[in-house]
């Protein structure tokens, strides 16, 4: 549910086509609203006074509603992270995403991290790889997933806030403990250059770990390919080795995609395409193979982590096209 004040709604309408609104502002208010608006308790979390104009948005969660006063630098149309936070111009600035890149991303002319020319080349190379692997385009449903397509990463990838979370994530990503000066640098970037008002997105925006210097590499480009034909070839690879293509031999026990070591044997040109594209874009291109029906819908057990097909997924048409459509 979203409720907008009339005044701010008008302003919002007028400014919608502008993309990014106003200079970065650190202040905002948020309200936790249980049961009714009368019980609303306003908690001020910003450090500076409330701005003269503000819009109030209500996001309903499972237990209660959150009333959020959207700061003046909010991006229009909003890019929500699912927790009530909406991407702001300060985020774009920190992440190095300019308004052109945002426009291209919104209109699906190129994902985040690619120019339109790069994306066109990417699709052409993908098409060639599929052809050389003798795969009919009709037999493949290709979707772009992850933060390059959705701005924010999945719900399970939360942006670290405190020291413990930063150190844990650094260790997981880099394979070692950070030096104390490295932690200071990350905290400086996080709190002094980016989130200066204490209002954090819950999920990690595109390239945020790289910009914070937690990760060495930029965010990757996730390709989800759903094709019974590719799965059948992967099964053949197993059978040729005298094994039965059951259980974890074929599908990853946790993520349910076809085990990635089979891809290079089943579709070698697709594998080589991913390596070449990684070189060209300087960011990893990750392939995940599923049956034509797509990833299983695990909403019941995994909630929003389920990777099943959704309306609004970014479907890639490998042939050159002016823009791509939602599924």
């Amino acid at each position, binding site marked *: 549910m979203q409720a907008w004040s009339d005044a701010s709604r008008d302003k919002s309408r007028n400014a919608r086509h502008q993309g990014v609104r106003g200079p970065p502002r650190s202040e905002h208010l948020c309200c936790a609203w249980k049961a009714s608006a009368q019980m609303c308790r306003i908690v001020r979390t910003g450090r500076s006074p409330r701005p003269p104009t503000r819009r109030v948005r209500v996001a309903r969660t499972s237990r209660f509603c959150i009333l959020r006063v959207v700061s003046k630098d909010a991006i229009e149309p909003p890019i929500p992270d699912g927790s009530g936070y909406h991407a702001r111009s300060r985020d774009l600035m920190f992440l190095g995403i300019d308004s052109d890149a945002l426009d291209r991303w919104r209109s699906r002319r190129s994902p985040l991290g690619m120019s339109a020319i790069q994306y066109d080349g990417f699709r052409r190379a993908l098409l060639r790889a599929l052809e050389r692997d003798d795969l009919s385009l009709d037999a493949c449903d290709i979707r772009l997933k992850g933060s390059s397509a959705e701005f924010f990463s999945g719900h399970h990838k939360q942006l670290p806030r405190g020291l413990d979370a930063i150190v844990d994530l650094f260790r*997981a*990503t*880099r*394979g*070692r*403990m950070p*030096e104390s000066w490295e932690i200071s640098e990350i905290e400086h970037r996080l709190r002094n250059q980016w989130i200066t008002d204490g209002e954090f997105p819950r999920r990690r925006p595109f390239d945020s*770990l790289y910009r914070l210097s937690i*990760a*060495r*590499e*930029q965010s*990757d480009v996730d390709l989800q390919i759903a094709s019974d034909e590719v799965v059948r070839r992967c099964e053949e690879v197993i059978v*040729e*080795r*005298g094994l039965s293509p059951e259980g974890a031999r074929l599908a*990853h026990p946790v*993520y349910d*995609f076809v*085990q*990635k*070591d089979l891809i*290079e*044997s089943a579709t*070698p*040109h697709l594998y*080589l395409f991913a*390596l*070449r594209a*990684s*070189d060209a874009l300087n960011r*990893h291109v*990750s392939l*995940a193979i599923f049956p034509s029906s797509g990833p299983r819908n695990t909403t019941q057990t995994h909630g929003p982590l389920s990777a099943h097909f959704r309306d609004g997924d970014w479907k890639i048409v490998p042939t050159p096209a002016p823009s791509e459509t939602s599924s």
Partner: protein
Amino acid sequence: MMPLILWRMSLDLVLDDRACKRLEMSLGLHFHGGNALGEITLAHRFLRDDLSGSTVLRLVRLSSGLAIEVAAFGDGGAYPQDEFQGLIEQVSRELGGLRDEPPSAASGSESHYWRPEKVGAVAERIEVEAGQVVMPFYIMCDVSTSMARDMAALDGTLRRLQREVVEQPVVDDIARFSVLTFSDSAKVATPLGHFSEAALPSLSVEGGTNYGSAFRLLAQTLDADRQRLRSAGYLSYRPCAFFLTDGQPSDRDWKDTFRRTLTYDRSTGRGNRSHPVFVPLGIRDAPVDVMRQLAYPPGRSRWYVAKGSNVQEAIHDLFGVITSTVVASSQAVGGRAALALALPPPGSDVVSGDSSFDTM
């Protein structure tokens, strides 16, 4: 266009960002990042990439740990030999350097506590650890004229076995392979060694089916290999010899030759005390009663006969037995188990049974 692994080295390496950076700088590897789920290829560099094929130096995560390898796609295997050698030396040198690197060059002793003691790469293969255990396998192939139509299938299946072994570093580390061929006479086609370092010859048809020549050559080869392994500091499991044949023996005294060269009589002390576990695999006209008598020693060995009329499928099924046996046995070595002969693949035409050697 299945990839062919031209070279592989297992790594015992803490792959932190500093090691990544160094490998990036020295070997030109492009790292893919630590967050990609289920990724096998962690870093790569194209050594050659054109329409006819690609050769990729890559860092991979296998079930047994990290490995660096050169993979060829298409005719990517046609990589200049001198350049290839230079590359291997460079990689080995660089990974050796990583092993010598102090735990944390940037911070001195401050962060020593978190880093595991096992730092660096182990360029095994060349350096033999004292007492390292190996398990020798001998694959004896019948190349008599009756195998003429099936030679390509035999050749291909043998190469597939090689590929499957090479893809599993744990198996490749422990198992050693030798390929012997026999017809009127016998010869060593591939001397005992790592499959990953072996160049398999193309098998060609020769003459008759003289079992005795194969038994004699195997006994001589076993003896020579045992001494060579021992002098190199290896501990060796009892070898296992797979004997694949499609016909009746043409020599009359094959039983005596077998008994004399490849069996041991404890009561009399006669025969070959270092005999192998001899596993006969029969196809087409190989008589079951002969196969039964060749399974030695009783209780440890089994015989296998593929009864189907499709010889290529039979070869495939019997090599399935070899592959499963090699993998299961090599992986069980750490757990002190020895040879674990596999059962016939379910649904195949292969029958198997216990030895009848005593009734010989």
